């Protein structure tokens, strides 16, 4: 049935009229998302862009099944999301590595639940550790790694289980500019080799335009989808980031984001 949905060209993720209200035990409830509707196609790379606090992580948590959908509905391959599962791999904004496990053990953890034989698991874990450039740090604990290295461990861990879709919450946020560039093209290469659905949260307009097929721009809190921009660029061109089409698109998206960032700022200054 899942094959049927993916094969038929219908959307893989359907989000319809979703609100999300946080009710902290102390303090006022916070409306994080309001009437969000969005569809993500199979094997599409979608970037979610929006000012801080607009509900990007919240939306990812809802798709991941970590938070219950209270209003509206979210379908994954045609079925409502019932909870977390390894079919939807997530890279958390703050890495969420197990601090008591080494880099290797962190990557192996997910694989252990999947059931390939031990030797194969070890090989697979190593290949993804190599991929993110952490060779030699297999036996380090997260507390011994830099922020960027933790982030790369988290990415390796999620990629290793080869989920159907990838949810990534600012996965390159803690990286320096060079490493970020490397990881971006690495991710694009992986994605091109075996395209899968990616929902990629970022603050960085260039990154969104460079990586994504479509960029969904969100409004300031309560978060809504303001516009979706189609990116029509030839990603196989190594110099795409220098093309005028790229620069124009970045400019256009910047304009959309800036309005919302200013609104978010005003909301903070005059409550």
């Amino acid at each position, binding site marked *: 049935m899942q094959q049927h949905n993916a094969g038929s060209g219908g959307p893989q993720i359907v989000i319809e009229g979703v609100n999300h209200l946080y009710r902290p035990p102390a303090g006022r409830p916070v409306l994080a998302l309001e009437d969000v509707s969005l569809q993500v196609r199979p094997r599409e790379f979608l970037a979610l862009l929006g000012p801080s606090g607009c509900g990007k992580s919240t939306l990812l*948590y809802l798709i*991941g*099944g*970590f938070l219950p959908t209270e209003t509206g509905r979210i379908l994954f391959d045609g079925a409502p999301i019932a*909870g*977390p*599962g*390894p079919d*939807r*791999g*997530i890279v*958390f904004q*703050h890495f*969420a590595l*197990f*601090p*008591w*496990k080494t880099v290797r053990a962190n990557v192996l*953890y*997910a694989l252990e*639940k*999947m059931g390939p034989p031990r030797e194969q698991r070890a090989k697979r874990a190593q290949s993804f550790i190599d991929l993110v450039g952490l060779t030699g740090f297999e036996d380090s*604990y*997260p*507390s*011994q790694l830099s922020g960027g290295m933790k982030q790369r461990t988290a990415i390796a*861990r999620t990629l290793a*289980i080869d989920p159907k879709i990838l949810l990534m919450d600012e996965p390159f946020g803690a990286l320096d500019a060079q490493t970020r560039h490397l990881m971006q093209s690495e991710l694009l290469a992986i994605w091109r080799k075996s395209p899968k659905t990616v929902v990629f949260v970022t603050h960085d307009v260039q990154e969104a335009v460079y990586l994504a097929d479509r960029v969904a721009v969100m409004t300031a809190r309560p978060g809504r989808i303001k516009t979706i921009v189609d990116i029509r660029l030839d990603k196989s061109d190594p110099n795409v980031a220098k093309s005028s089409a790229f620069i124009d698109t970045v400019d256009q998206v910047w304009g959309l984001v800036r309005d919302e960032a200013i609104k978010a700022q005003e909301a903070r200054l005059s409550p």
Partner: protein
Amino acid sequence: MSLLIRYLPLVFLAAGWELAARLGLISQLALPPLSHVALAWLEMLKSGELLANGASSLWRGGAGLGLAIVVGAALGIAMAWWQPVNAALGPLVEVLYPMPKSALIPVTVLWLGFGDGSKILLIFLGCMLPVTLGAFNGARGSDQALVWSARSMGASPLRMLWDVVVPSALPEMLNGIRTALALAFILLVSAELIVAREGLGYLIGFLGANGTYDAMFAVVLTVAFLGFAADRAYQTLMHRLLRWRE
């Protein structure tokens, strides 16, 4: 070498003790010279008295503390994770925690008599709550994202509890266990002093009543050393278990 310097004050104390007793500054009845105490210790070691009573104490303490750790940890984590368990047991733990546990000595004797059973029960009851509280606070503080992370990688809710909540609770739980370890010594020796027919505490009381003070001091020092050694060994273990925190 540095170890020697560190424990130098103890050497001075020992020398002072010997001198004070020898020079008659303190009556030898109140404080027999350390050399006599050492001889008495060797004597008891040879006769097997020390080992037999030590083994009996060790069994009681080990069994009671072991039970306290297993049950206490399970209870604390269950309270942190299931609200109904917390609602049912939270107030109970709160009320019982500050109670002086030695008050339980006559109660456990009433229930289980003079033998091992009453000591094990006493230590179990007395040492459980620090472990429970440590496990509870530690488990409470588990990072939401880690819990989610494990679930998204295919761990069942119960598996996640073992894989994430237990290790998250470990640092505070291990601190609770350290408190429990010290408490176990206190409770064991007090209970054996008051009502027992064997054990190191019993031996102290028996030798004291007999007026063989050098032997009594030998057992007191033995207990003190065991307490110190247990704590050091535990700290080493704790350090190894928490290596990842550095």
